[in-house]
């Protein structure tokens, strides 16, 4: 008789077995994903200190692994915040350990990418990773470590403490992995270019295995406002989250519970919600219990709509006493209540129109750029902001279709373009309305920032088609398309005027010359006045 065995596996083990869900599907995808994850961690590390990132990436060839794959050494250095020494082993040697499980916009969100890269390196080359880090004061700490996959624990092989004379701050990660650089090269270079575009305040340096040197220099030290950490919005909560909050809350009544743990919930909103959901009742000294329809809110106080007297509110339950059923019901009521304010965007950090424009100018060198930042919006309780851009002419190639650049939380998305919501929006837009056709040299940029990007996969390659997101992208692109149309119309007009003027200034003097000869006159007629009037005449025609 066959026996079924049950065993628990660790998080490391899980990702070891399912590494393709994180983007490590092939040697070329793996080397791209590894470089990308580390660069993104580095960018986050610098930005959290509000210092313009300086990132150095080097890939060097170590030897042949198989026919399709080689072994490379990847080294990424940054000038970021650094990792405190006691956290280094776990931060780099334990999957799902990290600093990113917070509600604010960040590039990484799973605390997975960097470790996944190291894990992948370890399982393909059996070599330890080497980490140097310093927070700027004190020493530099060096760890040589591997991941104990079955236990999801770091295995420290070596540890050194170095003197930090120059007060260096930052992190260096170096490890070996299997990959196929030459197939990945176009994507990697494109990744750096687009990252430079989205982070115009960063210096990026990349040295490839052939020793070729690529440098993307910052053009500004201006950086976008960093995101603030935020509380969950009532529309976005689930039962699990409510239960956790109930367990940890120090507050003894529902009013305080709602006010303190949720985003955009004030006293009045909390009261209204509690009445709406029946968790408390309001009663009028004359008319007794009041249903929500009979309450007038006057300067934030509930009053009876019939007599105008202030209503009395019953006291609410202690959240700790909520039964499981009540918690489920609370979640449903939270979602149904219409009067919560939408989440604000302080937890988001869009690039901003000026930086987006500067980055686009820097990397694409177009003739014209229009950018637009939409107002914050939400989907399923998660705030998001769309930034759209359109670039025209200059060094942008004409290729019969629009170039589309997609970004999510300032990360370029390079794979699975066809499935992305932005592409769907671009394809379904009526560009002819804006006198724009795909045979023009045009690049379209879409940047989605959110505390939770609606990715379809863990590999973070494309954004799902959420109606709210789709609508915002469409509105953003319409705005920049209008601006481009305006630019094109204006330029066309200027061209036409210039041509017109040149026709007159070419022919009028000739007419003057020929007619002078024909009439047998000595002196040419004065045509300056006419030429001037052509200019004026032209201006009137606009």
């Amino acid at each position, binding site marked *: 008789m066959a026996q079924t065995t049950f065993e628990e596996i660790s998080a490391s083990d899980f990702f070891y077995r399912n590494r393709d869900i994180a983007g490590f599907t092939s040697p070329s995808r793996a080397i791209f994903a590894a470089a990308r994850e580390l660069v993104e961690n580095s960018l986050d590390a610098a930005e959290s200190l509000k210092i313009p990132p300086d990132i150095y990436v080097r890939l060097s060839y170590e030897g042949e692994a198989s026919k399709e794959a080689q072994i490379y050494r990847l080294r990424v250095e940054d000038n970021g915040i650094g990792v405190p020494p006691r956290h280094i082993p776990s931060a780099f040697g334990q999957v799902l350990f990290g600093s990113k499980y917070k509600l604010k916009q960040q590039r990484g969100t799973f605390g997975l990418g960097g470790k996944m890269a190291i894990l992948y390196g370890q399982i393909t080359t059996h070599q330890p990773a080497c980490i140097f880090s310093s927070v700027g004061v004190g020493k530099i700490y060096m760890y040589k470590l591997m991941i104990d996959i079955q236990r999801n624990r770091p295995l420290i092989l070596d540890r050194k403490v170095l003197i930090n004379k120059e007060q260096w701050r930052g992190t260096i990660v170096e490890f070996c992995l299997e990959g196929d650089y030459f197939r990945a090269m176009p994507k990697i270079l494109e990744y750096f270019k687009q990252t430079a575009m989205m982070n115009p305040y960063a210096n990026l340096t990349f040295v490839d295995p052939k020793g070729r040197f690529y440098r993307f220099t910052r053009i500004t030290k201006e950086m976008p406002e960093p995101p603030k950490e935020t509380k969950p919005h009532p529309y976005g909560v689930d039962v699990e989250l409510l239960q956790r909050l109930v367990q940890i809350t120090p507050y003894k009544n529902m009013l305080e519970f709602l006010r303190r743990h949720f985003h955009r919930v004030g006293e009045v909103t909390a009261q209204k919600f509690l009445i709406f959901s029946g968790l408390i009742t309001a009663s009028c000294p004359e008319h007794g219990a009041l249903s929500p329809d009979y309450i007038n809110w006057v300067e934030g106080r509930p009053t009876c709509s019939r007599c105008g007297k202030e209503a009395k509110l019953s006291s609410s339950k202690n959240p700790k006493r909520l039964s499981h059923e009540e918690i489920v019901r609370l979640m449903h009521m939270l979602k149904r209540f219409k009067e919560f304010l939408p989440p604000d965007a302080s937890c988001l950090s869009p690039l901003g129109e000026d930086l987006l424009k500067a980055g686009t100018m820097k990397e694409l060198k177009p003739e014209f750029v229009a950018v637009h930042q939409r107002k914050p919006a939400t989907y399923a309780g998660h705030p998001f902001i769309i930034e759209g851009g359109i670039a025209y002419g200059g060094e942008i190639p004409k290729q019969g279709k629009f170039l589309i650049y997609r970004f999510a939380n300032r990360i370029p998305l390079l794979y699975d373009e066809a499935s992305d919501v932005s592409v769907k929006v671009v394809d379904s837009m009526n560009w002819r309305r804006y006198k724009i056709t795909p045979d023009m040299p045009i690049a379209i940029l879409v940047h989605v920032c959110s505390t939770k990007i609606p990715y379809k996969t863990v590999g973070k390659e494309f954004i799902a088609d959420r109606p709210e997101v789709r609508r915002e992208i469409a509105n953003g692109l319409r705005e920049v398309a209008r601006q481009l149309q305006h630019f094109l119309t204006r330029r066309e007009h200027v061209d036409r005027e210039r041509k017109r003027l040149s*026709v007159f200034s070419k*022919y009028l003097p000739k*007419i*003057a010359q*020929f*007619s002078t*000869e024909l009439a047998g006159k000595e002196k040419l*007629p*004065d045509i300056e006045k*006419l030429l001037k009037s052509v200019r004026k005449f032209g201006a009137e025609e606009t």
Partner: protein
Amino acid sequence: MQKKHKSSIIERKKEVLSGLENLGAKIYNQLDSGYFPSVEMPSRSTENIHYDPQLRQFILGDRRVRRSARNIRHVKPFTQLTWTAEFSHELTSQRKTSTLRDVYYSAQAYEMTFKDQQESNNIVTDLETVLGLSREDFNIFPEERSAVFGDLTIEYTVPGYEGRTMNLTSHPDGVLIGPALTSSEFVKTTADKVIAIEKGGLFTRFIEENVHKKFNALLVLTAGQAPRATRHFIRRLNGELNLPVYIFTDGDPWGMHIAMVIISGSANAAHLRELNTPDAKWSGVWATDIVNYKLPTDPLDEVDMKRLSELQRDPRYKDPLWQREIKTFVKIRKKAEQEAFSRYGLTYIVDEYLPAKLEETK
């Protein structure tokens, strides 16, 4: 005969020069007083071309068009027009001649290249319309191909030949009707009629057979559709020397129309006068001649038949004789060339047909 006003050619040149100079002055003055120069001329669009039964030719109606240098689309043609006027003035005053092709190339020296020959031809026609003169008047000639033979003494007015005279019998191939001839004065003639012939072969035969002597005639070769210079020349022979004109063409709709254009002019030249000879006669080959003389024939094809039905509706063909001939063509569906008479011997046409027809169409 008497020498007719000797100065007619000189007078005409003066008229042409002053017409061009006035145009120049008009443009100059408009420019000088700060206006965009413009010229007005009759419209040459089809709707504005009418047949005038009194003049017996096509004329332009009352619709006029204005070419203004203010209009972006007109400024280049306007410049070309002014240049062409200046170019013509130079030609005329220096008594040089030129061709349409020349005009096309000469413009290139002034950075206002014509797009193609057609564009430059149109501008020349514009200038004709503005001035009411034909391009030959301002010394722009088409290629020459028609000729004249017979006892007419002319006196040249072209530079280097002024005052020299020549008798048009002096060369047995005939004399080319070119700029030198068309600008000549007529001095004297013994001829009492003009015979215009469509084809070179017959023209040579007539000279060989001494038609000019036997019939006391000047022979003109039109070489197909007569060029405008030739039409004007025939008109002068008719008008200045009082000679009746008889036209011999092939017996088909196309030959018939060659005669008609000499008599009543063409729609293309509706803006011009004095190119037609209204009293000239079409003497043959008629459709009825084909029947009466039992000439060898070819069948009329579809294109011929279509042309006949066009001509039938043409106001120039209202006269009963023309209508009768068109109907006969349609009935017999046959055509005959002038050479068809050779079936009766080479001299038959001169000995029998010609005298009979001259008498018939007198």
